């Protein structure tokens, strides 16, 4: 249990530094540290699938963010904050905090999965019949690619669309401009 609190403290400190620092590059690196702590937490919770994905996405996302922040050099933030915006954000944070406390009270204890409390949960079927029905020893793979393959198709579509958008928007010069020049 203690390692979770140490990791949580590390992640909270990194998040505060990421918000408070004025240097954009160190803020990006602090965000990477938060993701690293999250992947360690998944590893302690015996979810190595998610831990592997989390850490490689964090590493690659960090490279992409650093590349994007160095290219456009907006390193220092200046200017005062508006009073009205501050009041609105404080109120919203307070409401979300109250809702979060109410939601946490209904959750089961830390470390006990929800399917031990709910008798007819779908995850119990996945665990008891997953190997027989799909033949995959890795239950995560059998859920992701067999029982809930529609979700995976949706994720792949989201990734595909975002790549198309990025390659179109980040072209060196708009095609129309090039045609006008010719």
């Amino acid at each position, binding site marked *: 249990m203690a390692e979770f609190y140490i990791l949580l403290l590390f992640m909270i400190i990194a998040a505060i530094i990421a918000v408070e620092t004025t240097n954009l590059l160190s803020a990006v690196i602090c965000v990477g540290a938060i993701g690293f702590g999250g992947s360690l937490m998944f590893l302690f919770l015996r979810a*190595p*699938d998610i*831990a*592997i*994905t989390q850490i*490689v*996405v964090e*590493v*690659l996302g960090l*490279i*992409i963010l650093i*590349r*994007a922040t160095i*290219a*456009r050099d907006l390193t220092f933030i200046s200017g005062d904050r508006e009073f009205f915006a501050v009041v609105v954000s404080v109120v919203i944070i307070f409401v979300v905090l109250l809702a979060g406390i109410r939601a946490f009270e209904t959750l089961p204890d830390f470390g006990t999965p929800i399917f031990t409390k709910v008798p007819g949960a779908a995850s119990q079927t996945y665990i008891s019949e997953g*190997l027989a*029905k*799909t*033949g*995959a*020893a*890795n239950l*995560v*793979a*059998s859920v*992701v*690619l*067999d029982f809930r*393959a*529609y979700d*995976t*198709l949706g994720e*792949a*579509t989201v*990734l*595909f669309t975002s*790549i198309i958008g*990025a*390659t179109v928007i*980040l072209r*060196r*010069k708009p095609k129309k401009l090039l045609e006008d020049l010719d």
Partner: protein
Amino acid sequence: MKGMTIIVKTVSSWVKILIFLFGIYIIISGHLTPGGGFAGGIIIASSYVLLMLAFGREFVEENLSLPLASKLDCLGAFAFAMIALLGFVFGGTFFVNFLVEKYGQPLELLSAGTIPLSNIAIGVKVGASLFLVVLTLSMFRPDTSSGKKE
């Protein structure tokens, strides 16, 4: 000389093949051990990103050009959708695992029906698309030709 120092170049030229093979291992054994198409594809993409950081963009574009990566991306997405459609044709339902009893026993490398095939398709797709993201971001320069300065 393009790229980083000779130390980084030497080390990354040794390490790149290990990272690439590890990504392929994660994809192929995704139905047996932790991992799968998403994680393995990103590891494969990161081996190319390492080469790009060490040797410069032009070196990587000779090996895996932008049109080829784009085609691989489309090929992976197409293969995944085709596996789903084949489930509809042979099994009656979209995405049904129509190969599950056809070959192999559980816990073997060749088992689990369409799951390894889907893993390979997703791995190709994710690896190519994340490589494309880094490549397009490294090509991106702020447009200074129009003469407007902020």
